[in-house]
């Protein structure tokens, strides 16, 4: 059961990745760096200026969005319409710069943000308070994203650009601005996920890569470009992790996940929970 709570946060991270992929066909390799940035933003805000941990979430969402929009113009915009490898290289180099700076400042040691929350006991199970709150906040963010994409004019424009960029341009949607907005949203989601993960687990500057890879696994499960699928895929991954942990050492979870990743890609190349595409 705890796997569902943790997995939903993986789903949140993967939503950021899959949103960017769906809207602009870009595999965003700054994703892991954005997750780590969320973790360290939480660390700095709580230890530096004594901010209550969950008050950092809106700040990280807004900051992540602004940084994401800036990143779009710096590293992505000129690569749109070029060979995909160019975008992989440019986002990967941003990733290296961020991780490199982080390592220079904080080293690669373990960090921990202590969040004091009472757990909840139900029958013979006890759930950690941070895990429950992380899942609740994930549900709120995911729900808001859904409302934005399906019930606002701008959100529908994001889906229109994802669906057919040329047609979107022809009906008067400023598609370049929509792309930068989507990139900002994707980075904000990754940052928020990183912050929520940091309330549950210790982390290092190098943690981003593992969570970025988890996001890829979740995306493969949920179907590329499908935010709702990402949440389901995240929960599925959380369950697999929780299940595997009962039988083998924790260090094996990544191995299990990647075997799963490969198997899924072979059997369901478009994702297990992918909606039918017309």
């Amino acid at each position, binding site marked *: 059961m705890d796997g569902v709570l943790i997995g939903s946060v993986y789903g949140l991270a993967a939503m950021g990745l899959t949103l960017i992929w769906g809207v602009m066909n870009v595999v965003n390799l700054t994703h892991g760096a954005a997750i780590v940035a969320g973790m360290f933003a939480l660390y700095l805000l709580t230890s530096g200026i004594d901010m209550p941990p969950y008050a950092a979430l809106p700040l990280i969402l807004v900051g992540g969005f602004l940084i994401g929009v800036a990143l779009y113009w710096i590293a992505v915009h000129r690569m749109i319409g070029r060979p995909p490898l160019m975008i992989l290289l440019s986002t990967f180099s941003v990733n290296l710069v961020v991780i490199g700076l982080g390592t220079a400042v904080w080293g690669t040691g373990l960090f921990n943000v202590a969040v004091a929350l009472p757990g909840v006991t139900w029958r013979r199970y006890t759930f950690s308070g941070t895990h429950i709150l992380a899942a609740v906040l994930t549900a709120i963010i995911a729900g808001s994203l859904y409302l934005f994409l399906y019930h606002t004019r701008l959100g529908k*424009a994001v889906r*229109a650009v994802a669906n*057919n960029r*040329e047609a979107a*341009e*022809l*009906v008067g949607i*400023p598609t370049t601005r929509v792309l930068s907005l989507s990139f900002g949203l994707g980075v904000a989601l990754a940052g928020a996920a990183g912050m929520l993960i940091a309330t549950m687990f210790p982390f290092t500057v190098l943690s981003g890569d593992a969570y970025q890879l988890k996001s890829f696994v979740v995306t493969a499960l949920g179907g590329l470009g499908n935010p709702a699928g990402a949440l389901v895929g995240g929960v599925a991954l959380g369950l697999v992790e929780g299940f595997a942990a009962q039988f083998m050492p924790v260090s094996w979870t990544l191995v299990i996940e990647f075997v799963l990743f490969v198997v899924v890609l072979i059997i369901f190349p478009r994702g297990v929970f992918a909606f039918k595409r*017309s």
Partner: protein
Amino acid sequence: MSDALLEVEGLTAGYGEVQVLWGLSLTALRGRLTTLVGANGAGKTTTLRAVLGTIAPWSGRIMFQGEDVTRLPAHVKATRGLVLVPEGRQLFSNMTVDENLEMGAFAKRGAHGYSDRLERVFTLFPRLKERRRQKAGTFSGGEQQMLAIARGLMTDPEILIIDELSWGLAPLSVYQLFGALKTLKDAGLTVLLVEQNVHLAFAVSDYAYVIAEGRLFTQGPPSSLAAMPEIRRAYLGL
């Protein structure tokens, strides 16, 4: 020609090294239906792309409502009322009819008077009203073309440019759509139609341009063009 709404002067354009248009000029008059016909590969779609700005023209000038709009991006042209119904429909296939129409009205000019225009569009194409919540990708070709035109109308166009109205459609749908086009024209809408079915295009239009190999071949009212032996042979199959 004081009532010229859209004027294209000496347009050249192409893809990479390949030049497709070699100095094309044409004019669409306000309130008229102008047709651009030509064989496959003559440069009709390229002309429209260059006019709308989805590809950059190499040289030439595009005047719209007396202003030079040659270098404006496509989305800005749409907000000024220069609206294209693209070849192959290009609907938002994962979105519903309602959402497609709402996106058509994304620009400010379309948002103004939205519900009245929606009613008019549904009167023109009642079938769309029955399927408002259905996804566009599930539609037949004729219904998709109706929706594409409806989406264009929702922008409240000054001029509606339609690329290949009859493309890939069953004869019955083609006649329905040409009927709708006639209705729109009679209501005073300015239309620039690009069409391979020259018979039908000549039947509804006020003025026609014939292009071949990226250049203007001839122009005139359809009745006089239809009398020219080379047009009858090459385009009307007579």
